[in-house]
């Protein structure tokens, strides 16, 4: 059966990707003898988990009904699920005139996801090869601008979130700024500040949600 076959292939290949994701880190250890201490690896894990664990678990399940098993396995190995895989899958189903959620729809979503994975690997590999040369050719005035990329990205993303849902996100952004500044002045390390910003944010979004629910149900 197709679904069962997809699940088996998916688990094996994704397991392979889990191993592959640590190879550069292991290479640095074997070639240059540099590795974080056990305690620091644990800190890195808690830092990552604090920031992303909700996403690791909630996102795959959110998209599962739309993707099906095959496309889920393919999409969560390569990422960019919402902005790249999903549009490609719906375009493919639309082009073939086949509805999502049917066995035919699941086969096509698998086919479309596999196609986009190959497209992105091919494209990005070509850009990587050409791109290295491009960067070497760039004048210093341009490469100097690269150090300002991080603040530019985060500024753009925060504005994007605020515009997407002002009522839900603006309180989170303001609370994030306040919590950061207060904890920074208190001398806390950034690992804890990250964790606390996210946790306090959860309470803020719960508060916003409750307030909103109350407003939606007036005079109950």
């Amino acid at each position: 059966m197709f679904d069962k076959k997809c699940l088996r292939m998916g688990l094996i290949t994704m397991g392979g990707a889990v191993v592959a994701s640590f190879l550069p880190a292991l290479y640095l250890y074997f070639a240059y003898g540099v590795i974080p201490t056990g305690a620091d690896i644990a800190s890195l894990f808690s830092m990552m988990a604090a920031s992303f664990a909700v996403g690791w678990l909630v996102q795959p399940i959110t998209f599962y009904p739309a993707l099906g098993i095959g496309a889920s396995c393919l999409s969560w190995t390569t990422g960019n699920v919402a902005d790249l895989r999903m549009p490609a899958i719906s375009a493919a189903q639309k082009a073939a005139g086949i509805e999502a959620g049917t066995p035919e729809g699941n086969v096509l979503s698998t086919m479309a996801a596999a196609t986009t994975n190959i497209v992105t690997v091919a494209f990005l590999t070509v850009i990587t090869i050409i791109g290295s040369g491009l960067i070497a050719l760039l004048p210093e005035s341009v490469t100097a601008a690269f150090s300002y990329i991080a603040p530019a990205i985060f500024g753009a993303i925060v504005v994007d979130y605020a515009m997407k849902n002002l009522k839900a996100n603006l309180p989170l952004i303001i609370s994030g700024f306040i919590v950061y500044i207060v904890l920074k002045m208190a001398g806390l390390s950034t690992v804890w500040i990250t964790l606390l910003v996210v946790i306090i944010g959860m309470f803020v979004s719960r508060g916003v949600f409750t307030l909103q629910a109350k407003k939606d149900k007036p005079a109950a």
Partner: protein
Amino acid sequence: MDISAIKNSPGMWIASGVMVLVIVVQAVLFMRAAKKEADQLGIPPEKQKEAKRSAVVAAIGPTIALSIMLITLMASLGGPTAWMRMNDVGSGRTELAIASMVGDMVSAEAGTPEWDLQNMSYAVWAQGIDVAGWLIGAMVMIVAGSAVTKTLNEKFDPKWIKLLMGGCLVSLFSYLLINQVYGKAPPFAIAAVGGGVSMLILNKLFGSNKRLQELSLGISIIVGAVAAAVAA
């Protein structure tokens, strides 16, 4: 040893290439299985071709946006790491976030080659943990599949789950933004404002233009970084 030589060493290319190989093998395996199943279900080959072609067309815009991110990542993380992480589930935004998050944990003296190497080691470990987290989370959730969807939506308000999930990302990026600006030189704030204003304008004026929307982050990065470099 020079850190950028290590970042772009043949060993790093090989260690990073394994992930890309896994992705290609996986795509080929699934493509063959899907083709076989599609034939059995009686989907005509022309329809299959049309579907694949539409998928390619839909993927081009976002892929160009990814390559802008790839080039910017190459400057800070080196070719192999940028290539691997842009191909796997680690996103460009996350990799930049990680790179700025681990810096404070490094114990070697700042500005020395030891610091550079240690910082890189911490960054690739954190990236490995992040990518493994996505993969394992997805594997668990795909197996649990429909049963979990049902329980989550029954026990909790799905609207609340969505808000909570999105909220964590918003909090995180608020943290990252203020961390780039607070106590730093003015050009960092100029870059943040430039990126933000550019996104605001692109969203307001071209909100309905899908292609431009896909490029909006890439454009905002350029606007913010150039504004900061000019002001510096």
